[in-house]
């Protein structure tokens, strides 16, 4: 029987990691992620979680320690945000290339300068190509559920890849929400023990992270790409199994009133829930609008995106990151590329908004949708629109 409690989302993540019975946590505190690892430190110190907690001097070291722990077959967790994720950057590639299933929550935060601890997706987009499975979440329950799923997906023999769970800094990390926690026995049933097939073991020596000269490097990279693509199937299976067990279902692309909608808005993360309020209001006003929410960011859900938007005339994509000198928002540019070869496709209009913790209200989303429709009719000489910058 699940327990429902009002709890800060960061603390709830710590509880999820406790339920997952992690073996090693190596982390460095950084706003807005700090409460996650702070709670885990408490759980370990109080003997409520039998794990090694490794306090390190930086995020680079945190991720490096996680690699070592994961390499011996330990269930490994860390969390970071913004600048911390940037400092981890080079080690993130090593985790995925070495196929080490480290699980990490990222409390999404803007990047300096100017210094901002508030939320946007600049940090997410900077690590887009590091080879991790990446999942966006919208509320506390989704984070908790997907942390449990992440261990099962990442540690699956067919996957063996690190997984990042993205949650919006402050908007999600610091709010108190009612969250259902499964029983320990239910989690144990859902999440089998981690059994890394070739761990570091003195009785059966292996070398990891070796030198890869030109005659072999490209083969290793292609093997990695094939493997990440193959993870799609396992991710779907895991979410399906999770749904059957806990009655909460997840998909790579989530749809909201999108079936008959002429105009679709695409969002990710916690802003999606605010956008739903705008969709509800516009629906009451008789407008044919709907919402598509991107849940799975890597591997990118090409088929699901094409399917979800195929009947729409206009697709408005809101990014919370800028690709400077580029095509606007990274998600919009990927959505455009997914649809480019389609015969029947909506007109895609890109918006960038909500940077550095700037809120977008339901009225704001309505404004974005109306402006998007206007651009789709009149055209625009800009690659993308900005929303919310004072002129």
């Amino acid at each position, binding site marked *: 029987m699940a327990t429902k409690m009002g709890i800060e989302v960061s603390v709830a993540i710590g509880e999820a990691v406790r339920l997952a019975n992690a073996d090693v946590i190596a982390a460095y505190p950084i706003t807005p992620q700090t409460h996650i690892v702070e709670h885990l430190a408490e759980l370990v110190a109080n003997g409520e979680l039998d794990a090694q907690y490794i306090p390190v001097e930086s995020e680079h070291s945190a991720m490096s320690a996680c690699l070592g722990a994961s390499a011996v077959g330990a269930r490994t967790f860390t969390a970071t945000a913004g600048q911390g994720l940037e400092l981890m950057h080079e080690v993130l590639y090593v985790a995925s*290339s*070495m196929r080490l299933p480290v699980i990490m929550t990222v409390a999404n935060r803007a990047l300096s300068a100017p210094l901002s601890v508030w939320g946007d997706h600049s940090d997410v987009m900077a690590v887009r190509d590091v080879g991790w499975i990446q999942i966006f979440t919208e509320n506390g329950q989704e984070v908790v559920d997907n942390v449990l799923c992440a261990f099962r997906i990442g540690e699956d023999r067919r996957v*063996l890849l690190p997984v990042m769970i993205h949650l919006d800094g402050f908007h999600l990390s610091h709010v108190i929400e009612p969250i259902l926690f499964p029983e320990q026995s239910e989690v144990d049933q859902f999440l089998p023990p981690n059994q890394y097939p070739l761990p570091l073991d003195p009785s059966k020596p*292996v070398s*990891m992270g070796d030198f890869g000269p030109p005659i072999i490097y490209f*083969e*290793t990279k292609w*093997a990695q790409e094939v493997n990440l693509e193959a993870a799609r199937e396992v991710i779907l299976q895991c979410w399906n199994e999770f749904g059957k067990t806990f009655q909460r279902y997840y998909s790579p692309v989530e749809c909201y009133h999108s079936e008959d909608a002429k105009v679709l808005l695409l969002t990710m993360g916690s802003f999606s829930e605010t956008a739903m309020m705008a969709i509800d209001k516009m629906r009451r006003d008789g407008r044919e609008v709907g919402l598509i929410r991107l849940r799975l960011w890597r591997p990118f859900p090409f088929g699901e995106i094409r399917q979800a938007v195929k009947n729409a005339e206009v697709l408005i994509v809101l990014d919370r990151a800028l690709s400077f000198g580029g095509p606007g928002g990274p998600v919009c540019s990927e959505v455009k590329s997914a649809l480019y070869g389609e015969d029947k496709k909506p007109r895609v209009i890109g918006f960038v908004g909500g940077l550095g913790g700037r809120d977008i209200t339901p009225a704001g989303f309505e404004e974005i949708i109306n402006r998007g429709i206007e651009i789709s009719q009149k055209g625009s000489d800009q690659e993308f629109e900005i929303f919310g910058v004072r002129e």
Partner: protein
Amino acid sequence: MTNPEGMLTWKDLEIGSIVAEPGNASQYQTGDWRSERPIFDNSKCIKCGICYIFCPEGCIEQNAEGYFEANLFYCKGCGICARECWTRAITIVPEEE
């Protein structure tokens, strides 16, 4: 690793390119980096072994007659042996010659 590294396909690789067979670095032909090779003039060689001692690749061996020769499977052609040789018995020549 049953195949030489250069023959492996992406499907042959272990998870994360783990090397599950210890000590197989000796199968790697570092000699293909070489653009110059050492030539040993045994008429000048005093069999002191300074080339053997200084070779960073450990690829110089003493033969049955006591002279030294480089194993070109591993020799990268760095030229340290020629630089250190007291009697100038070793010269470095470009590979194409």
